[in-house]
């Protein structure tokens, strides 16, 4: 009798273990290069995905040293997402070393998240003289929430293709996430007033630079909330940045970036460039220098000492600090930091 009891207990434990194993296996294993891609994938994939980001969000996304651990993670992945646009070029090393055919470029298990995104600063000349760190245009697209809407859609579409049985779920998750971003951008009140397709309509108006004009003509300008409202604090203000990290952010929120501290990434600038930057800051009355946390502060401190401008250390990826654990927090953090420094 006792033996039978033990047997039943053992078998039922095994079954529980097995079923949990099966349930766990059902989750799609997704690997992303950057922290923000992980966040967006988690929002869209919900409880059907298990996401790992390879890069340390505190580090420079241009230069990440692949490790055996990354290769191992990629080896077990069902789906690999990279930013593309020559930002996370190191992803190629990880893909090569992963020995995982499913996630190689050209297969459904590989996605360049920034397809369909309007890329700025595309090279004007097609020549090998491009020799630029951004040969495919500026890759820092995610600091514009409207681009994150597109990226979320790209990821959702691919998840549907890879896991068709959960298509409806992914669509719902995508709609929910986009609604959250739209509310964060424009405020809930305005979204409700416009009603059907409000996100798409406001996005189009914003992209065509006719949002405020249109809201005024419809007497809705006092209903605008969210980032588009709070960004009024920084709109038109002049700042300088270390690298061209913020052009999408600046375009969206009306910040005026008058120049960069670096001339060419990775090469010490020529002396005349440095003096021109100091002159520029004095002439334009720039009050703030944005220095990404992973860039050396020497240049910014030098310029600050000559001009009295303030250096703000910024984070640009989700998860880089306590204040930037979600995408929404990251944008709020940047808006608040810049506004506080300008005040």
């Amino acid at each position, binding site marked *: 009798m006792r033996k039978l009891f033990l047997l039943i207990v053992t078998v039922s434990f095994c079954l529980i273990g097995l079923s949990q194993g099966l349930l766990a296996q059902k989750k799609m294993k997704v690997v992303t290069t950057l922290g923000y891609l992980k966040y967006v994938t988690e929002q869209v994939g919900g409880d059907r995905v298990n996401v790992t980001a390879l890069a*340390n969000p*505190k*580090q*420079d996304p241009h*230069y*990440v*040293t692949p*490790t055996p651990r990354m290769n191992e993670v990629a080896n077990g992945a069902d789906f690999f997402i990279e930013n593309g*646009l020559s930002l996370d070029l190191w992803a190629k090393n990880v893909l090569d070393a992963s020995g995982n055919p499913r996630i190689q470029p050209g297969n459904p298990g590989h996605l360049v998240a920034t*397809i*369909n*995104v*309007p*890329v700025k600063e*595309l*090279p*004007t000349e*097609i*020549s*090998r003289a491009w020799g630029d760190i951004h040969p*495919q*245009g500026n890759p820092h697209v995610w600091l514009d929430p409207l681009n994150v809407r*597109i990226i979320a859609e790209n990821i959702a579409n691919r998840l549907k293709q890879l896991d068709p049985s959960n298509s409806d779920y992914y669509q719902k998750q995508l709609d929910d996430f986009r609604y959250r971003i739209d509310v964060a951008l424009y405020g809930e009140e305005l979204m409700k*007033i*416009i*009603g*059907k*397709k409000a996100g*798409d*309509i406001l*996005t*189009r*108006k914003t*992209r*065509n630079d006719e949002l405020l004009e249109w809201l005024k003509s*419809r007497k*809705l300008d006092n209903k605008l909330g969210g980032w588009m409202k709070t960004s009024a604090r920084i709109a038109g203000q002049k700042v300088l940045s270390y690298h061209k990290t913020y052009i999408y952010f600046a375009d969206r929120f009306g910040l005026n970036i008058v120049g960069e501290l670096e001339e060419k990434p*990775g*090469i*010490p*600038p*020529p*002396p*005349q*460039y*440095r*003096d021109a930057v*100091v002159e520029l800051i004095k002439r334009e009355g720039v009050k703030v220098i944005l220095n990404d*946390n*992973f*860039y*050396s*502060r*020497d*240049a910014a*401190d*030098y310029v600050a*000492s000559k001009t009295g401008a303030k250096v703000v*250390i910024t984070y640009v990826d989700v998860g880089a600090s306590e204040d930037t654990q979600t995408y929404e927090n990251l944008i709020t953090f940047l808006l608040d930091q810049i506004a506080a420094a300008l005040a």
Partner: protein
Amino acid sequence: MEQIFYFPETMIWPLLACLVLTGIHVYLGVHVIARKVIFVDLALAQIAALGTVTGVLLGYEVGKDINQLYLYSLAFTFFGAFVFSMTRMRGEKVPHEAIIGIVYAVAFATTILVLARSPLGPLELDRIIKGELLWVRSNLVIKTAVLYSVVGAFHYIFRKRFIAISVHPEKAEQDGINVRLWDFLFYMSFGFVITSSVAIAGVFLVFSYLVIPAVGAMLLAEKISTRLIIGWVGGAIISFIGVKLSWHTGLPTSPLIVCLLAVTLVVAAVIRYLRVAPNWRRAVLNLLASAVVFGLFCAGVLFFAKREEDPYEHTVHMLESKLATDRTVAIGKLGSFPDRKNEWLPLLVKRLSDDDAEVRKAAIVEIADLKDRTATPQLIPLLHDPSSDVRDKVLKAFRVLGDTSVVTSLITSGNQEEDPEMKIEILETALELGDARAIPAFIETINAGGLFGGDAFDQLQRHLDPKFKSGDVAGLKKWWQENRNRIEFDPQTKRFGAR
């Protein structure tokens, strides 16, 4: 001429920094070469860097905890100095340079390991190598000059011992000097200097200041005092020329100085060669022959430069590139080859069905710019594009092209469109192209009311001949009921009126 005498005010501090470095490093370089430990500064610099990144790993922040991090790097350097003084062997069974090389490699590797765990990342490694000479500030230069004066004074007071243990260590030991102690003091002061110098100028400029003037001076003189003077004067002149030239040419300062130092070394070597050569005619011929070989080498390198592809061919290739951004750029370039339009137009039309919305948009805009109506059949399906941005661009293209063959498709998709704002835009495009069937659809939207009812009224009203007051929906509807069968479009004003 003015250029020659001009020295930019803003370059004074970098120049003074270079002169401070020349002062101490030429002197230390003479020691380092006598001891045959050329790479000791690379090793100590790397150890100092390891100290900094370790400090960062333990929670200190770059730019904030400057003093703590400096102490970390200094402590590490002193430890390195201790290792180097302990590993110098009598009789040199293992060359000291081998141990220095090993320490360098291990310190470098450890730095990378530590960086893998710290937020600084590989950029910090880059900074250690290249330095931040251009961003140096007055207070740092003055502080460094004072510190180096102290080190210099220390070396001057005990010059006999320091020179003895560097040049004749065996004899020094016989004379009763504690070689290990003075070795440690030497490496300690050396490491102290290196830590500060690398923070200003980076590893490779510091290394060059240490070794190149000293080697050049060695070629030209025997006495230590003469060598020092040659090194100091030469180093100072090159620093001045380098900083000035960097200003005028726009080239980065530190690497330019390194290359100029190397050029002067070649000049010094030629002078020495001519001085010691037994037959100067032969020597000159040899030099000329070397110059010819060098010239041939350079010419060969340039000869094998990659040939540029024909710009048109290249653009066409880029249209098929795997990268969406390349395709977008290539579309924009097509217009610069107007004589070959017949060749590329089909390729452009093909891009209307590209996977990437941005490429489709670029193709639509380009076709609209061309005012070419032959592609209209391929544009119509894009009215149902998943991206509303693309739909928006197609409508704009239809207005520019003015092709009335699309109106039926417009009315159909306008009636299907769920997005109220987009619906108005589609119908307005139909109005603009002169199709009165859009008017009932507009009136339907106006009847639905709400935010976009108002929008629809405003847009419709702009295309009607009798003016209606804003909000006069009843008047507009009445007019339409009375005149719907005798409506006519005026293509000039783009307005509908009753016949």
